[in-house]
């Protein structure tokens, strides 16, 4: 009897899981189908890009500065006197801009943007606003979702490049200007060591675009399937954050294995 219940439970959840993937995939297809109408929905796209900037810029600035400084403290503290300081800077530089900054910011924005997106669409859904769009001959995917996914994919790389600049500048400021730990010249040569362009495209363009895509897609998905009143909106927001965070850390690992 017990085992039967367990099997039913597991079976039900497995089916739910695959249904969810299928539905999310449908959302992607519908968004791609809405792409040719991008000129029709241009206002919504520019608006979302603007909203994205306003919502993320301040938090990205604060976080990136301290991520950079944290990495610097650890790097300088862990390295012995035998390791040349240019090498230490190189390690700090690469680990910060390829891994630390992108993933920490992506996770934070998954919380901030993903939750607000799911709550926003969720409350529209339960108050019939999504249906109102349809009766006004506007496609909810084209009007609401495609612009958000696009904004996520375009803006996350830009935010992360900006954050990386800030992070490295703050490291430079502390290590070379405020203290005399390393000369500016050595600092620069440390950054240039072992330079591989693809790593930077990977960390600053590919990964953030993928993360931006997941944040917007998952937020939209949970928002659009919201039901059950205000409680449902809260649930949608929580689910969006958890699922997009898991996807981000998984693809952070998987893409690195695949591409680097």
């Amino acid at each position, binding site marked *: 009897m017990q085992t039967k219940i367990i099997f039913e439970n597991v079976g039900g959840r497995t089916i739910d899981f695959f249904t969810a993937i299928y539905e999310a995939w449908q959302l992607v297809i519908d968004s791609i189908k809405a792409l040719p109408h991008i000129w029709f929905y241009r206002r919504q796209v520019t608006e979302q890009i603007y909203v994205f900037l306003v919502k993320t810029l301040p938090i990205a600035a604060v976080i990136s500065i301290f991520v950079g400084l944290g990495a610097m403290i650890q790097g300088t503290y862990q390295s012995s006197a035998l390791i040349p300081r240019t090498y230490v800077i190189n390690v700090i530089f690469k680990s910060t801009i390829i891994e630390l900054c992108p993933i920490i910011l992506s996770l934070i924005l998954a919380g901030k943007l993903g939750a607000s997106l799911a709550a926003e669409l969720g409350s529209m859904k339960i108050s019939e606003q999504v249906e*109102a769009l349809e009766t006004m*001959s506007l496609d909810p995917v084209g009007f609401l979702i495609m612009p958000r996914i696009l904004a996520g994919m375009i803006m996350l790389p830009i935010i992360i490049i900006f954050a990386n600049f800030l992070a490295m500048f703050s490291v430079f400021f502390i290590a070379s200007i405020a203290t005399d730990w390393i000369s500016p010249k050595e600092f620069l040569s440390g950054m240039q060591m072992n330079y591989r362009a693809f790593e930077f495209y990977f960390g600053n363009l590919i990964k953030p675009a993928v993360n931006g895509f997941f944040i917007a897609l998952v937020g939209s998905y949970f928002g659009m399937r919201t039901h059950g009143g205000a409680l449902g909106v809260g649930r949608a927001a929580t689910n969006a954050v958890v699922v997009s965070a898991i996807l981000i850390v998984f693809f952070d690992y998987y893409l690195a294995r695949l591409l680097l």
Partner: protein
Amino acid sequence: MIEVRELSKNYNGMPVLNGIDLDINDNETLVILGPSGQGKTVFIKSLVRLIEPDSGTIRYDGIDVLTLPKRKFIAIQKKIAFVFQDNALFDFLNVKENLSLYLRMHSKLSEKEIFKEVLRAIEFVRMNEEVLDKYPEELSGGMMKRIAIARAIIQQPCYMFYDEPTTGLDEANVEMVVELIHKFKKRVCKFEKRVCATVVIVTHDIHLMHAVSDRVVLLKEGKIVFVGKKEEISEESLHRLYDTGVRDDL
């Protein structure tokens, strides 16, 4: 003309619409009356394809819309306006933007012309310009309903659908809604010189039914139990419709 045949919809195995047959004539005001929970909202939303029914057909002027791909349905959808039970105003847009959205997306009017249309609509629902900068959350229930009606008429629809337009409003606002429903027809016929102005209303408000209907449909448990003129409805059939099983003699 809208022809509905054999329309059925189940939720969780429970029939909500149970084989509905109905013809809605052009230019009539049809009131679908039924107590709460009888599938009125499901029915009216099915008519405009917000809900996909399980079986049956719906024809607008002979075109079967349920088999039409969504893309092709848009031509018909543009003739439809819908006033939701809870208004469904976009709460991220102020009143002006709520009213402008349709024209901005679907017409080639300039900003100035759009604004003129918005003013006309606001005047139509007897409100003044001050309301334009407000957000829906700052409006009272009666004001929201009027804005929702304004947002619908700005689409210049041929078919106007109302889901419970008077629920939750006080008497003054109910009278206002009644007036607006009449005015819509007059405006369409007189000023816009168009011929089509079909109004479909679902409600449980008997007063509203008496005030506006050309024809009445009584809906009970997902079935039509009466179609005809309001004068033909007997006291008894209304009584039976609203019979809740609570006995007065207790």
